[in-house]
C-alpha cells in the first residue's frame, strides 16, 4: 500500500526552480534514501514532503489525501506523526536542552517533569549523553551534541514517518554508529523513513530504494543494485 506519493512536485523560490516534475511513491515501512550533489534540492524535497514549504507545484499525497489541502488542524496532526531531523539540529535557542526535548510532551500532555524524563531516559542512555547538558542552552553545545539532541527530540514521540536531513554530519564515529542503528531499525518498526545523505556508500548499504536528485529533478529511482547498473555519468560520479 502506497504511503507517500509525489505527483509532479515542483518548487520555485526567488524566481529559481528548486525542484521540478518529481514523481515518486514511497511505501510504508520503506527506507528511501535521497542522494544528490550539493544544491540539488534534497533538503527542500524533504521539507516539501513534510508540508513545511507552502508554495509548491503538484501534489504530495499521504495516505490518499493531498497534504497541501489539509486544514491547519489536519496539518498539525500530520506533523505530530512525523519526526524530522534537521541538518543543523534546529533546537529552540531560548530553551534549555531538556525543555527542547520536553516541549511536545508539555504541549500535548500533562506529564510531570519526572514522567517526561522517564520517557527521554532510554534515548539518553542509548547515546550515552552527559546529563549535565540537559540544563544548558543550545548555544553552549557543540554541533555534534546539538545534532544528537535534535535526533533524540525527533524520535521521542515514536513517529510513523521519519525524515532525516543529513543526520550524520557533525557526529563522531561512535555517535554515528548509534544513529545508524536507529535509522536501520526504523523500517522494521513499520516507520516510513526518508534519509537524505551525502554518504552514498551508506545509502547503498541500507536503502530499500534510492532516489538521485540532480538540479531539482529526480533522474533515477530504484533499488541500490539497479541504480548501480544505470549508465549515467552524473550517477556514476555521485556513487
Amino acid at each position, binding site marked *: 500500500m502506497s504511503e507517500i506519493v509525489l505527483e509532479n512536485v515542483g518548487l520555485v523560490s526567488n524566481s529559481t526552480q528548486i525542484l521540478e516534475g518529481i514523481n515518486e511513491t514511497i511505501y510504508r515501512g520503506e527506507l528511501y534514501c535521497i542522494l544528490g550533489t550539493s544544491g540539488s534540492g534534497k533538503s527542500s524535497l524533504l*521539507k516539501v514532503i*513534510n508540508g*513545511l514549504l507552502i508554495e509548491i507545484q503538484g501534489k504530495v499525497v499521504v495516505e490518499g489525501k493531498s497534504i497541501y489541502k489539509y486544514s*491547519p488542524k489536519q496539518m*498539525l*496532526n500530520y*506533523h*505530530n*506523526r*512525523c*519526526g*524530522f531531523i*534537521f541538518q*543543523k539540529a*534546529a*533546537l*529552540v*535557542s*531560548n530553551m534549555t536542552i531538556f525543555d527542547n526535548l520536553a*516541549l*511536545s510532551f*508539555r*504541549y*500535548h500532555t*500533562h506529564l510531570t517533569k519526572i514522567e517526561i524524563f522517564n520517557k527521554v531516559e532510554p534515548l539518553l542512555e542509548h547515546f550515552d549523553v552527559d546529563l549535565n547538558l540537559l540544563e544548558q542552552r543550545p548555544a553552549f553545545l557543540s554541533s555534534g551534541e546539538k545534532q544528537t539532541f*535534535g535526533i533524540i*527530540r*525527533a524520535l521521542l*514521540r515514536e513517529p510513523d514517518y521519519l525524515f532525516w536531513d543529513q543526520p550524520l554530519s557533525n557526529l563522531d564515529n561512535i555517535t554515528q554508529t548509534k544513529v545508524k542503528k536507529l535509522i536501520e531499525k526504523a523500517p522494521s518498526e513499520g516507520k516510513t523513513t526518508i534519509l537524505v545523505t551525502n554518504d552514498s556508500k551508506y545509502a547503498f548499504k541500507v536503502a530499500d530504494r534510492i532516489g538521485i536528485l540532480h538540479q531539482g529533478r529526480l533522474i533515477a529511482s530504484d533499488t541500490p543494485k539497479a541504480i548501480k547498473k544505470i549508465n549515467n555519468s552524473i550517477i556514476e560520479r555521485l556513487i
Partner: protein
Amino acid sequence: MFIVTALSNRVLDIWKYTGGLFALIFFSISDYLFERKGRHLVNKIITSQIFFTGNKAIVIISAVAFTLGAITVIQLFSRLSSVGALDYMGAILNVVIIRELGPLITAFVVISRSGSAISAEIATMMVNDEISAIEMQGINTLKMIVFPRIAGVTISLVMLSIYFITLGLMGGFLVGNLYSGLTFATFQKYMLNSIGFLDIIASVMKSAVFGLFIAAIPIYYGFQAFTFTQIPQVTTKAVVSSIFTLFVLDIIITLMFSL
C-alpha cells in the same frame, strides 16, 4: 504605465501587509480561545512575556513618567494660576498625560526595547529552522509563538501605561508641592476630580490597541526573514512600521473618543 504598475504593486503590497497583520492577530487569538490543547504551556509563556516586557521598560518608564508629570504640572500650575484659569488644569492634564502621552510614550519605550527584540528573536528562529522544528512536533506556532507575545506585550503595555499615568500625576504633585506650593487639596480639586471614567477607558483602550499592533508588527516582519542578513533589515522595518502605525492608530482612537 510604469508609474501605474509601480503604484498598483504598492497598493497590493499594503493590502497584503494589512491583511497579513490582521490575520496574524485574529487567528492567533482565535486559536488560543478555541483550542484547549497546550493552553497551560502557552499561559506560562504569556506570564514570562509580561515579565520580560514590563521588566525591561519599568526603569525608563519611571524616569520619563515622573519627569514629564513634574514638568507638565509645574508649567500648567504656574501659567494657569497667573491667569486665573486653574479650572482648565484637569482637562489639559487629562489630554496630555492620561489620554495621549501616557499610552504613546509607553508604547515608544516598549517598541524600542521589546519590539526590536521580538522581531530579531522571531527572525533568528526562522533562519535557524526553529519555527519549523516546533511545527514538526504538531505544535500550533500561532498559539505557541505568536499569541503569547501579542498577549504579553498588550497586557504589559496597559499595565505600564497605568503605571506611567499614576507616576506622572504623583510626580507632578510632588514637584509642584515642593517648588510651587501646590497643595493636595488644589491638586485634587483641579486635577484628580477632572479625571472621568471615559478618560481612563480611552487611555486603556489606546494602550491595548497599541500593544496588539506593536507586538504583531515585529512578529509579522520576523516571519519574513530567511537568511541571517535579513535579520537586521526586518528588525529595522518592524520598528519603523510600528512607530508609523502608532501615530495612525492614535489619530483614529482620538477621533473615536472625540465624536
